[in-house]
């Protein structure tokens, strides 16, 4: 149980950290402007395009990973235990 929580937390924090860095690089027009949630660069180079894809993937990995380990797997285990009884 605690292990599952730790896995979810590790996924959420680690991918959230990388997401924050990439968003700080590519989606932050300025310190006193929109931060982390700005518009994507208009004409991204190949590297920037890859980074934006990775950022998007990490965002969903952060959410789905935490949901999987905190909700889906425990619920499935509960359901299986209920069905077994």
């Amino acid at each position, binding site marked *: 149980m605690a292990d599952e929580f730790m896995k979810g937390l590790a996924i959420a924090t680690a991918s959230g950290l990388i997401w*924050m*860095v990439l968003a700080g690089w590519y989606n932050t027009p300025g310190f006193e402007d929109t931060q982390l949630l700005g518009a994507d660069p208009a004409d991204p180079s190949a590297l920037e395009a890859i980074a934006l894809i990775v950022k998007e993937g990490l965002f969903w990995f952060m959410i789905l990973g935490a949901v999987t380990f905190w909700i889906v797997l425990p619920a499935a285990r509960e359901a299986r235990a209920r069905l077994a009884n």
Partner: protein
Amino acid sequence: MAEDNDSEPIADGSGTGIVAPDDETPTWSERKERTQGLSRLTYEYFERARREDQDLRMESDYVERDVLGFPAWPHEMIRNFALTSFFVGLILFLSATLPPHIGPPADPSTTPAIILPDWYLYWSFGLLKLGPLNPELSILGGEKLMADRTYGVVANIVVVGFIAMVPFLNKGSARRPVEQPFWAGIGVMGVAFAFTIAALSVKNLLPMDSHLLFDLTFLIPPVLGLISYTVFRAMQEGYMYSLNRRYYRLRPPK
């Protein structure tokens, strides 16, 4: 088991008459009448817990050693180095990837349009805006006893004084809010007031009528406190019921 050893207490909830069956938990008056059984029951409860502990220890292959502590080197230091490197690494990583913004130099010749304290002092800043509460006393010919700014400073003393007084009014033996709904309600009221008075301090930034905001500042906290009091009060019976039920029920032997 009951035949061969009568002195052994039966703890499965059927024999002694001490323990109520699961489906009929005794009422409060019945519990009060039962002064003899409770000590016996407590003894049985802890004795069972102790024996289960002992059985688990006998089954386990974990070797207990007589160790008072671990040596600082290497045991403690390795852990400390691991934690230290983690946080130092995080600081290096963040300062390298997201270098801090350095704004333009401060201009001492102009005053900013909006001057605010740091966010954690908004509540105190809000207390300086209680001018409408400062009464105009007819005994003084419609004059106020003290200036509005003095009144705001005195309000700080009142709030801090109340916070300092609460531990003397209630020593806080409750482990959960549901155990003392009244004080939980007081606490919710205080937290809500911290937020509403902070909102009042930035009233010129909020898209809201400032008179309405002023009224809500003092209306919302008691309402939230009352709601939480009633909710906790409603939860209390069920909470105490299950607590007593757990206490009065001994698990049947496996």
